[in-house]
């Protein structure tokens, strides 16, 4: 297990180095973007993807916790919320840099910026709630309930708010315009970066889970 883990870590290191090399040196800068600004997409999209994925994992783990009442699901929810906060901050910062170069301002409350802000607020609120409850079981229950409630707002933010406000953000998920698509080389680097960032966050996640389990065991020993 340890050997496989080591190999995977080295593989991830080489992979991410390759992604960074390809993003900055191998791929030509995309047309229709100012200067080299298009390169940020290889880091912005994966961080936003991981932030969303972590939110989803946290919600599913919260649901499972309420159903099964096993501490491991609470660890999963807490660790992925912490990771999600980190990646949401990274996605916001990279997005703001791109917005400054392309659209002239770091922040203009584009619907995507609104939804990432709300996601950040939700993560911050979730972690604030966790730190405000002492009893582990109560903390897990309350945090799980909040996580599920927060999930109710997601469809509204994703589908209804963008209908109300005009967005400058390139539409990645439902792109109907063939001129606006990534060419295959860009797509390959982007997918490689997505895989690399997902791998990296899985690793961070497993470290977080191990820390939570050690804390839990120590608490059990003290009691």
């Amino acid at each position, binding site marked *: 297990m340890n050997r496989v883990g080591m190999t995977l870590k080295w593989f991830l290191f080489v992979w991410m180095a390759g992604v960074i090399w390809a993003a900055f040196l191998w791929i030509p800068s995309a047309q229709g973007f100012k200067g080299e600004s298009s390169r940020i997409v290889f880091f912005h999209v994966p961080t936003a993807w991981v932030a969303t994925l972590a939110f989803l994992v946290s919600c599913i783990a919260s649901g499972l916790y*309420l159903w099964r009442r096993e501490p491991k699901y609470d660890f999963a929810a807490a660790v992925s919320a912490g990771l999600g906060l980190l990646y949401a901050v990274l996605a916001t910062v990279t997005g703001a840099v791109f917005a400054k170069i392309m659209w002239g301002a770091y922040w203009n409350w584009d619907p995507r910026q*609104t939804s990432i802000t*709300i996601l950040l*607020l*939700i993560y*911050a*609120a979730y972690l*604030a*709630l966790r730190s*405000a*409850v*002492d009893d582990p*079981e*109560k903390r897990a*229950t*309350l945090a799980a*309930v*909040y996580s*599920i*409630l*927060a999930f*109710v*707002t997601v469809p*509204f*933010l994703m589908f*209804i*708010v963008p*209908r*109300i406000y005009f967005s400058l953000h390139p539409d990645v998920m439902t792109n109907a315009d063939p001129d606006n698509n990534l060419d295959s080389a860009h797509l390959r680097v982007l997918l490689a970066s997505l895989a690399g960032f997902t791998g990296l966050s899985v690793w961070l996640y497993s470290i977080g889970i191990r820390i939570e389990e050690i804390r839990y065991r120590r608490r059990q020993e003290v009691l």
Partner: protein
Amino acid sequence: MSRWLAEALAVAAKDLRAEFRTRVALNSLVLFALTTLAAVSYTIGPYRLSTEDRPFLLSVLLWIVIFFAALAGLDRSFVKEEESHTAPLLRLAAAPTVVWAGKLLYNLVLIMVLMAMLVPLFCVLMGFEIAMPWRFAAVLAAGGFGLAVTTTIIAAIIAQAMTRGALFSVLSLPLLLPLLIFLIQGTTAAATSDLDTYRESLRAILSMAGAMTIFSAFLFPVVWRD
């Protein structure tokens, strides 16, 4: 069903009676709203805004005043039970969903009282002219309901935590922000008689409030039992 409703009404009536003895929640709601309104009205007044910006900006101000007033007072519904150590008795006396419905009704009454006092005063002081008053009232009612549903479950959560006051706003705001966007849009549409936008935003408000109601009804027993 009628028994369930009667019990929920009894919980709400108990809370309202207790509230009108001390008026802690109502005072903080109304006084907060009036102070904010005085500040807004003093600094902006009825003539400062240009005619085309008026409906939108006034809707924004109105909802911000209502939201923050609600966040200042609506956590009392559950915090009070924990502070006066009456929560265990309530757990014994009534089923969880009954408690939830009663507290929701109580919060709804508080928010409606707040709106009944604040909104006419806001319209007069800020010179807010509404083209479709009944539709405006419908947006207010739907928004009040959404606000009451969300704050009820959050109040139940934070009553179990240690730092209550700040946590209530911190937890409520992310869940309320989408609702705030729809409410501002609906109010602007009612003020300018833009019927299509009005219908769309009212649908969004009602579906958001409905989703919150269903999820809170299922999740509340989990929060309350512990």
